[in-house]
């Protein structure tokens, strides 16, 4: 089966600004692919090249087996797009905009449209200028999902949605995936991608820095362990792969450290020697993955880059679904 999207060595410059610098991306049919990167890393530019709105300077791009620049219109009938910054026509109602976009794409499912309008709690009789950012976003999402597109290109689609609507969005994307559609979801909101994506690609400065399933990526990073032992655990810091060891109380009975994925076994064995009372292990979050890739930038911005994953306030690994709001790394 052909891939839904293949991009290799994509370059695109705007004047002297180099937006894409050899980007690679592969999306399998039927998967939800997370496309992660900080603002300005080239996510939107990539999507616009995939739509044939921008012409690549170099590199090979195929969408659903076709060239997005040459076959733009044909391709557009098979895909739907939600821009990151939705602009609507001030004197058209939201309902009119939905119908316009969906019908120009080649028709829409009236029943699904009505259902989506209901679920997203959208008033389709308001004029475009009267909508807030979140409501404009909903208009584009409804227009995209009310059609039978095989491929959904979503550029930070929930940027203006409130947490309740974000849950609705996640449900809707889940249903799209069940229906066999392919989704490319760009975001800098890590929790969202973590919940929805089968695989992720992380880009930085117009180049792909890592790509794979969440499991694969986690293996490459560190697990945070917080342990309480009967006796102070000595010699932990000497183990290979253990980083940022902190002692949390006077007696030394509580420790926290990060350990490389391949060295977890050794660290836990060591802890058992001191009689474990409690053990909490935090799986690496995408936030930590990102921190590893953007650590230098964050440090420059005054964040603590060193000792990431050991900062208790940042890695509240036991959080519950839909409550996390601290994903924006900017």
């Amino acid at each position, binding site marked *: 089966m052909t891939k839904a999207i293949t991009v290799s060595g994509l370059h695109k410059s705007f004047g002297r600004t180099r937006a894409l610098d050899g980007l690679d991306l592969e999306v399998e049919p039927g998967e939800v692919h997370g496309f992660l990167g900080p603002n300005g890393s080239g996510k*939107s530019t990539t999507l*616009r090249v995939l*739509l044939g*709105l*921008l*012409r690549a300077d170099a590199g090979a791009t195929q969408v659903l087996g076709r060239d997005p620049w040459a076959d*733009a*219109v044909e391709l*557009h*009938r098979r*895909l*739907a*797009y939600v*821009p990151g*910054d*939705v*602009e*609507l*026509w*001030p*004197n*058209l*109602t939201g*309902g*009119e*905009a*939905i*119908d*316009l*976009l969906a*019908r*120009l*794409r*080649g028709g829409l499912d009236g029943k699904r449209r009505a259902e989506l309008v209901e679920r997203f709690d959208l008033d*389709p*009789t*308001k*004029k475009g*200028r*009267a909508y807030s950012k979140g409501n404009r976003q909903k208009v*584009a999402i409804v*227009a995209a999902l009310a059609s039978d597109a095989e491929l959904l*290109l979503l550029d930070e689609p929930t940027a203006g949605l409130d947490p309740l609507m974000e849950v609705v969005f996640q449900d809707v994307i889940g249903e799209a995936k069940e229906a066999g559609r392919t989704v490319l979801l760009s975001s800098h909101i890590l929790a969202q991608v973590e919940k929805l994506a089968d695989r992720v690609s992380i880009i930085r400065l117009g180049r792909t820095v890592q790509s794979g399933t969440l499991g694969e990526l986690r293996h490459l990073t560190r697990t945070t362990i917080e342990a309480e032992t009967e006796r102070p655990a000595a010699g932990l810091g000497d183990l290979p792969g253990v980083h940022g060891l902190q002692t949390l109380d006077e007696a030394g009975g509580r420790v926290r450290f990060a350990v490389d994925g391949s060295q977890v076994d050794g660290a836990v064995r060591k802890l058992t020697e001191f009689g474990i009372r409690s053990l909490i292990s935090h799986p690496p979050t995408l936030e930590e993955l990102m921190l590893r890739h953007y650590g230098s930038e964050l440090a420059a911005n005054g964040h603590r880059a060193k000792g990431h994953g050991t900062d208790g306030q940042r890695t509240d690994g036991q959080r519950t679904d839909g409550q996390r709001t601290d994903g924006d790394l900017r």
Partner: protein
Amino acid sequence: MTTATTAPEAPASVGQVAGGNALAGTRTLIRFALRRDRIRFPVWILALLLGTLMTANSFSTLYSDPQDRANAARSMGSPAGLAMSGPRHYLDDYAFGSMLAHQMLGFMAVLVGLMSVLIITRHTRAEEETGRAELVRSTVVGRHAHLAAALSVAVLANLALALLLAFGLAGLGMEGIDTAGSLLYGFGHAAVGLVFAAVSAVTVQLTAHTRGASGMALAVVGVAYVLRAAGDSGENAALSWLSPIGWVQRSYPYVDNRWWPLLLCLALAVACAAAGFALSTRRDVGAGLRPEKLGRPTASDALTTPLGFALRLHRGMLIGFGAGLFLMGAMYGSILGDAEDMLKDIDQIQEALDRIGGAGVAESFASMVMVVLTVVAAVYVVMAALRPRSEETAGRAEPLLATGLSRARWVGGHLAVAMGGGTVVLLLAGLGFGIAGAASTGDAGLLPDLVGAALAYAPALWVTVGVAVVLFGWFPQASQAAWIVPVYAFVVGYLGQILQFPGWMNNLSPFGHVPRLPAADMDWTPLLLLSLVAAGLVWLGLAGFRRRDLETK
């Protein structure tokens, strides 16, 4: 608003401007506006200044002989001449100064009005519409600061223009252009500019949209010009006294030098500005006084075709220009009968017209009016043809072009409306002119002639669209340069007849190739060629747009 309690932690500089009043921050906003317009203002002011100085200078070569000036006075004395210039009183002593004031003041008043309206809308409603005003207003900035700053900036621009005009003209040292008259001439511009600035201070309160606000204010400018044209050319001079442009012209610089009509302007400006401030307190930031209405929850079938969609976006402007041009044509048509009556006894005019080609007085007047009507239609056409560009920069083209709509069909919808709409607008202008003209002359045969004369300009409008498309396709950043076409057509077609430009300047404009019906004979060849040129330009422009990146936000 905050009350004037003591705020020890506030920095002194802020406390100074704040004072807890509605004008807090005005001075900062004025400086900010001047910084934003550091190119725009000098360009406007220098263009107006140089246009005036060059015109005045050209008089000394064109009309060096007193006999030439007397002849000019006679030809300008026709209703058509007076409609295009100013009141008859200037003609009593047609020296360089009175000539300048007579021929330029009304025309310049429109341009100064345009400048002032754009200054106000740009710094008030446009700021609100984009949401920038909200950000600024959340700081230590008073409720009235934006409007006060915009008005102050308009005052500054108009005063600068007034002083430069006064000293520039006095500095020419031409006979009949003295310092006292030049001062009044310059400040006449400022007075009328302030009136229209204040008018737009009101219109920006009424609607939530920049386009609507400037459109309403420019409609007032247009009505003011039409009123004075009707008053100056016909029997009913009282009409001119309803127009601020008429007031300024009746200050008679270089002739009587009376300053008091400028006080009328000032009083009107103050009244309108006060109304603007008062109205602004009755609405929310970002909203207009007219409430937003709800609309259809679903789209009609017609809307979801490229053409139907483009038509919907252009609808308001098309109706506005159509109605405006119909009325403008009717206004000119209603004085067509006078033109014939008043001029047929004057031998010299008759001789001059005989030289043109034996056409009647009414026909020559009519062909001149056509130029004016066509230029207004060209303004519509350029605005319509540049719509795809504004859609693109606003980010609204992106979602559309990500659907099954091809680039060519998207632009094509807009172009079809621009070209078809331009033709309809011309037709309406010709109908208004023809119906009123036929009624005022009692010659029913004029109606088809005048409608035909108007429609003959359609291919030139299509070329104008073509120029805009080529710019859009290949040089999108320079799309606004398409405005050169109507501006040039106006300068050559309207002023060129007064200032006697050489023929090649006329040929540069697509409008210069259209036969001057009904005075001249019909000639199909140029119209066919213009249509071909238009088709070629559209093809070229679309080819460019297919090749380039879509500009995104």
